[in-house]
């Protein structure tokens, strides 16, 4: 069963349709599926709902899908690092569903684990709780949050073998595993495809069962906020 594809466009072939729900990995610009986003821009798929913690920046990452007006709705915890997002949002060209960051991650993980709903204390008594069921456990209020079941997951990992076993690197792991889990189909871009058996089976972060298609490519890996200390501080 061949999982390795030649390019991002090939890997997405047949998987895109207008109005679909896509779950995307990444936090800020760290660990984002750059190449797959570019291929979706190229494909021109419209009216997308995207579950992703953030929405990129002007001209990079998911920001590109904003520029091309392919996004109908974002499900995110923190957005607006780009002017185009705010312009479209204030003009009501873009819908926005705020999710607390942990609720968003857990909703993805829940969707992937066949859990349609779970209770959390996060957001109780706030705007986030509006319209949501409240239930008491052990004398305290919790709200019901629903699992996210995406049509497609787009994910960035560090290494993969050809069966789709994935390894991530440092904080670039972030939302990638939960995003991968919640999609009907999951397409992954990696920096390196390694030989089967070369990844220690104890150290695989996401087993190949979650991964349907893989591409290897070059990543820009742009840094959003370069912060350093001077060597004198040491």
């Amino acid at each position, binding site marked *: 069963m061949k999982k390795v594809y030649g390019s991002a466009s090939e890997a997405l072939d047949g998987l895109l349709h207008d109005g679909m729900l896509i779950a995307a990995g990444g936090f800020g*610009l*760290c660990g984002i599926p750059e190449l797959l986003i570019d291929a979706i821009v190229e494909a021109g798929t419209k009216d997308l709902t995207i579950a992703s913690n953030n929405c990129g920046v002007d001209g990079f990452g998911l920001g590109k899908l904003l520029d091309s007006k392919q996004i109908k709705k974002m499900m995110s915890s*923190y957005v607006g690092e780009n002017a185009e997002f705010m312009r479209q949002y204030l003009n009501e060209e873009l819908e926005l569903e705020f999710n607390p*960051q*942990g609720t968003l*991650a857990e909703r993805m993980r829940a969707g992937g684990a066949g859990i349609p709903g779970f209770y959390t204390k996060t957001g109780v008594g706030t705007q986030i709780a509006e319209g949501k069921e409240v239930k008491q456990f052990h004398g305290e209020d919790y709200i019901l949050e629903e699992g996210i079941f995406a049509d497609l997951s787009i994910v960035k990992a560090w290494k993969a073998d050809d069966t789709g076993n994935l390894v991530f690197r440092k904080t*670039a792991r972030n939302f990638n595993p939960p995003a991968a889990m919640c999609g009907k189909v999951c397409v992954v871009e990696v920096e390196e495809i390694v030989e089967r058996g070369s990844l220690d089976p104890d150290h695989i972060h996401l087993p190949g069962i979650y991964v349907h298609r893989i591409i290897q490519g070059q990543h820009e890996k742009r840094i959003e906020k370069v*912060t*350093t*200390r001077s060597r004198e501080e040491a």
Partner: protein
Amino acid sequence: MMPSEAMGWDRNQMAARAADELEDGWYVNLGIGIPTLVANYVGDKDITLQSENGMLGMGPFPYEGEEDPDLINAGKQTITELSRTSYFDSATSFGMIRGGKIAAAILGAMEVAENGDLANWMIPGKLVKGMGGAMDLVAGVGRVIVVMDHQNKAGESKLLKSCTLPLTGTGVVDRIITNLGVLDVVEGGLKIVELADGVTEEQLREATEATIVN
């Protein structure tokens, strides 16, 4: 009334005072702004910092030229790792936050009410970027410590009878550290724990809208 910046502790003194709240062995989450400075004052205490994008054991900023795009904190700044560091995904990260494994979060705020309600994520009519992990943190961690100026730029108290802004969490704040002193959320209102250098109880009371109890 004078803007509060003129009185009591400065930003670094507030951060140093907040660092006193942390106990040996604690896992702690620091918000952006003044809370970030707290890391400079933990001294010899064995404190492990969480970055909620998926890391425990957050180290200092890298030296120039050693930035790693795969290694950032929740404020999206480049950082470094330590010998105790571990990485994990966002669902696991917020599992430990929601599950009460993080002993304390030190956060900034726009408003705190005397019942512990906290508002720090949006101002209606202004651009709203989102709550990020703030709602998860205040609902989940063991102890929520707010560090903020006592008054806003207009000289109005940020410690209120009830919050006017949309809430981040209800009844979540345990302790407030401002430039004027330290207050705890207790039955019936706020209790003064400590006064900042050169601040009198009268000055603090005058600068506070919230009910102060003994």
